[in-house]
């Protein structure tokens, strides 16, 4: 009797484990794992035949507003099973981002799958359009599938061109960009700014920096950054400016700084950097103060120049020179961001809200104007620690 019951139970168990399946299964081959998306503002005369599917016979005409390019790797080739193109790119236009995604599904024969997406590149024109940019941000923010570790990047020109770049040694463009960005913490020509940071900064201070990516025929360059203020692109920061900004925001640990002294350009490799921002009121003015502590290695001097390079006084002078140069750059950059863009990129307002709530209560209603009158101070303490193996 017991054996019989056990037998029935076992059969049920086998049945349950074998017969169950996924409610909404999609075979993995039928999924296009999108690694990178490029979003552009639609331009009528792009002349790209591939992109244009006419919607003739449609009584309800939609206005084309976006051009979206999807790139996904040829998973078969990566697994080294089949030959062919390392990546596929699909370009589609339409009125709305989600709309475009759905209509691309109908053309592709595959399901677009965004959960593993690594980066979104937006074109300059789109970034300058407040309405479209805000729509894009909300679309990403609202979507449950897109992660916040994503890299949002902006490119001068068209995002589509970035996707079209044929990289030689990297098949998956999105992964390539992610690798580039992950090195950002070490070589700071590009801001360490993922989508989570951008969202946070935009929410809190209505401004953010977005990494810039530049492409030529078969090469990428991720360098510099775009400044977003009030949800549109207002300007660019160059490579060195971005680097200094990263120092000020305490987001990088290592980078190189070139110092000119005695008609010699000396590269210093910064190995350690610690920045502290303070904002306080003094004589009715708000003063923003940056204290940086850095350590650096000397990487090159001049061959066969003996004498002064073994004296500590020489290095003290070099330290002072480098500190002075950095202080100067910090003040200049702060003023540029403040005067030219009027953007509170360093989140001074947030600092006041957190650390000086009484002062913040006074200025928060007129912060935009008050910010433009803030004064900046910088104090850099750079120490040269290592000299290499020659004196």
């Amino acid at each position, binding site marked *: 009797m017991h054996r019989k019951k056990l037998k029935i139970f076992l059969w049920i168990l086998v049945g349950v484990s074998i017969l169950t399946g996924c409610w909404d299964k999609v075979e993995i081959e039928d999924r296009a794992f999108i690694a990178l998306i490029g979003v552009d503002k639609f331009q009528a005369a792009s002349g790209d035949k591939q992109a244009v599917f006419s919607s003739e016979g449609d009584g309800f005409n939609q206005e084309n507003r976006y051009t979206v390019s999807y790139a996904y790797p040829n998973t078969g080739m990566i697994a080294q099973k089949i030959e062919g193109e390392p990546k596929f790119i699909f370009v589609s236009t339409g009125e709305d981002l989600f709309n475009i995604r759905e209509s691309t599904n109908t053309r592709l024969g595959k399901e677009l799958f965004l959960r593993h997406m690594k980066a979104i590149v937006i074109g300059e024109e789109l970034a300058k359009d407040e309405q479209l940019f805000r729509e894009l941000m909300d679309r990403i923010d609202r979507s449950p599938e897109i992660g916040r570790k994503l890299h949002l990047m902006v490119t001068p020109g068209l995002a589509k061109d970035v996707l079209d770049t044929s990289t030689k040694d990297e098949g998956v463009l999105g992964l390539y960009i992610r690798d580039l960005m992950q090195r950002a913490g070490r070589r700071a020509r590009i801001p360490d700014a993922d989508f989570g940071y951008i969202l946070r900064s935009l929410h*809190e201070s209505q401004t953010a920096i977005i990494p810039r990516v530049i492409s030529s025929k078969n090469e990428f360059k991720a360098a510099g950054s775009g400044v977003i203020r009030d949800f549109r692109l207002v300007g660019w920061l160059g490579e060195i400016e971005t680097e200094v900004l990263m120092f000020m925001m305490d987001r990088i640990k290592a980078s190189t700084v070139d110092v000119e002294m005695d008609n010699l350009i000396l590269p210093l490799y910064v190995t350690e950097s610690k920045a502290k921002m303070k904002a306080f009121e003094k004589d009715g003015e708000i003063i923003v103060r940056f204290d940086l502590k850095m350590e650096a290695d000397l990487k090159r001097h001049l061959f066969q120049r003996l004498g002064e390079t073994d004296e500590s006084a020489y290095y003290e002078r070099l330290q002072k020179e480098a500190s002075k140069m950095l202080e100067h750059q910090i003040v200049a950059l702060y003023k540029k961001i403040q005067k030219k863009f009027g953007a509170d990129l360093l989140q001074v307002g947030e600092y006041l809200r957190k650390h000086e709530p009484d002062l913040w209560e006074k200025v928060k209603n007129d912060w935009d104007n008050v910010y433009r009158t803030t004064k900046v101070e910088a104090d850099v303490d750079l120490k040269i620690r290592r000299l290499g193996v020659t004196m």
Partner: protein
Amino acid sequence: MEKNNDRITSFQLMMMLVGTIIGVGVLSLPRESAKAVGPDGWILAIIGGILTLILAVLMSQVVQRFPQKTFQEIVNSLVGKVIGTILVFGFAVYHIIFSALQCRIFGEILKEYLLLYTPVEVLIIVMLLTTAYAVRSGAKTIVRLAQIIIPVMILLSIILVVTLMPGADYTNLMPVLRTPPLKLLQSIPVILFSFLGVEMILVLSPFITDVQNVPKRASLSIGIVTLIYVLMIVATTARLGIVETTHIIWPGLEVFKTVDVPDIFIENIEIYALGGWVYQVFLTLVANVFAASLMLQYLFRAKSHKPFVLPILPVVYFVALIPDNLAEINELLNLLTQRFGIVYFAIVPVVLWGISLFKKQKGSGKSAS
């Protein structure tokens, strides 16, 4: 069937309480608290925890005074039969509506994040049937479920919170205590929803064997819950900042999207958080449906709660489908907690405790004379 199927220990009660209190609310808790008091959300959670602790101790004392008595017997002997019946009936209705909304939010989140093409009705039905199976098995099985699930859950939530720790910006919690104390007090109802479920002490009172340990164990469970809430709020606010936290519907889930564990082939950590959360909701749901069926058993003077489990399900199902969308669900939920929940969560226990204290004194006075 086992003879002592309806006997549970106070330790099992403790696990059950943790399982019941942490429910669907934990994912939206950081948003609610940030909306109300900004960066002081964790202080609000601690205040809520302390208040709940007091209530739990009061309830435990009532239970201690009436060992192995049902909720109905307790209220009947304290406030009389008429009011007692109304209270029991209200308790049943409260649990039914509450489980319905839990079900709906569960379905909504699962559909949004995991099962994109599965109809929300199917999600609700599957969950309800599983719940019914557990509830029909009786009190002992339910608390054993909790005993298995909760320790794993506590461990999982600690591991998950640890992944959130590095890279968080703790200055987001500044300035500390700038919220006016009055506003802090006014915001307490906001946190209340997250602590609903302590009433299970009253519901489970007839089954508890070692009554003397109940206050201690109940307090411990509230401590665990408060700790998890505080960690959750701190980690979420630190990682997302206040503005974003108030902006996202389920910041407790979304925060895991900011985590990127380098060099490990694990992406989308939020899925694991969601997986653990499903068990948590399941336990809450089981507790609510169990309480509702018990109350109906008392009302109809039935021998067992079992016949009432299945008839409850359609009611729960249809109530769950009444709200149109999340905005409406949230409004309903606030109404339910602040009008209905507070009665059974705070007012009833305090009144019961007061009367029992009064009667006890009278009783002891009598016996002395």
